């Protein structure tokens, strides 16, 4: 299926028209959203998630394949085009992990048997394993985020994926991003992390609530990103070593 996601610009916090008037995204593209805290990054993906039609403070409009989406893809999870990993780090539902996953699978029209797969996948992203009979409310921030990530990859398998600051949860961020991105999806990543910001081919810079400019990732930036990946691998291995109670050695 052909899929194109368009954001028609609205206004910034002062009510001025935002400098980027239109943003088009196609399947297979990962796009970054960067900018200082409070600059409107989460509001932008919030607008996309709810298919805003001039009815949010930004006044932005979201088009799918050039048209206003109908009410059904907006509200029915079985037809939902969008999967979202928000900044929320905790579950509030007083249910066990497996009960919750089975119910979520049902809401998305998937068989209950996927619950086991979600837990196994989540446990590849987090240190301390999650047990299916654990109550959701006792999971740590990292465990919750790992479970939310695996849940999106397996149950909310939608063609558009919105990811808000995946780096803040103490889970393996690059593996998590690769898991969520899948093949042929449109992926929007809000991030403060230099490596994640330079992985996409383009990034939107937010300022004062508006889309300020779009930067194409240059060849030089790609090289920086490769260096960062090596640094990140080293940091991850140090983290694991320290977590396991061992002693670290100097860089090779």
């Amino acid at each position, binding site marked *: 299926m052909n899929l194109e996601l368009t954001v028609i610009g609205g206004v910034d916090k002062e009510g001025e028209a935002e400098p980027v008037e239109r943003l088009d995204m196609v399947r297979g593209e990962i796009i970054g959203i960067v900018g200082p805290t409070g600059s409107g990054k989460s509001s932008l993906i919030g607008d996309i998630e709810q298919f805003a*039609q001039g009815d*949010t403070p930004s006044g932005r409009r979201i088009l799918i394949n050039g048209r206003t989406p109908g009410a059904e893809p907006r*509200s029915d*999870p079985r037809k939902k085009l969008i999967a979202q990993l928000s900044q*929320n780090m905790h*579950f*509030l539902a*007083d249910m066990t992990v497996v009960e919750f996953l089975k119910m*979520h699978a049902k809401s998305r029209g998937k068989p209950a048997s996927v619950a086991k797969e979600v837990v196994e996948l989540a446990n590849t992203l987090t240190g301390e394993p999650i047990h299916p009979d654990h109550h959701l409310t006792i999971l740590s921030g990292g465990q919750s985020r790992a479970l*939310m990530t695996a849940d999106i990859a397996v149950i909310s398998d939608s063609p558009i994926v919105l990811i808000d600051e995946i780096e803040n949860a103490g889970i393996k961020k690059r593996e998590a991003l690769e898991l969520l991105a899948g093949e042929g999806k449109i992926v929007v990543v809000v991030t403060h992390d230099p490596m994640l910001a330079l992985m996409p081919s383009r990034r939107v810079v937010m300022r004062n609530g508006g889309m300020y400019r779009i930067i194409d990732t240059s060849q030089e930036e790609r090289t920086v990103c490769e260096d960062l990946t090596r640094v990140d691998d080293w940091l991850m291995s140090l983290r694991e070593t320290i977590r396991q109670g061992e002693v670290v050695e100097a860089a090779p």
Partner: protein
Amino acid sequence: MKLVVVAGTPGAGKTSILMHTTRSLLQSGMKPAVVKIDCLWTEDDRRFERLGVPVVVGLAKDMCPDHFSIYNVDDMLAWAASQECDVLLNETAGLCLRCAPYPDNCLAVCVIDVTTGPNAPLKVGPLLTTADVAVATKGDVVSQAEREVFRERILEVNPGCRIVEANGLSGKGSAELAELIRNGPETAADMKLRHNPPLAICTLCTGELRVAKEHHRGVLRHLDGFMEYVGE
């Protein structure tokens, strides 16, 4: 005249959602009037006045707030007509979750807070099960998965209802609700309630203060579920 009856658990965001929806209705050229029913005290009328729409407050005091709301429907509609309005937004204060203040020819809206957890839709009763629209609020506080599980739970108790995901702070969902109101039913002459009210008057209603079992009369239900009639 259209009638919209908004009910929901305390603190779910009824007033905030209704304020955003009122703005949206005004933008589309409709003329809304607001009646805010509360039990003992409210100053929400001041919030609505700032929108420039006619508003009255009804305090139910010692009367059941749902009965108060229903008993005054004719007066409310007459008042809204006298203000030359075409839609009456009635925010109720129902608390006991046994009945629902929805007449048949209205748009019945139940506002329910997602953070109360996926078992909450099972506890709300006729307020939710007989509603046309369930407005799920505070969804920004939980994950998308949790919102979808909550939605599934609403559909378990009310399979035919329309679910609107809304946010009282940002106004999300209010345009959608306003459109449902614009397409909602017109009131009729002999309206009936959708759901039967709970058991009739009890000893406490007539002023009994003593706790001991022997002082209570009427249709009584024991902790184990056994029901009996005690009285003449």
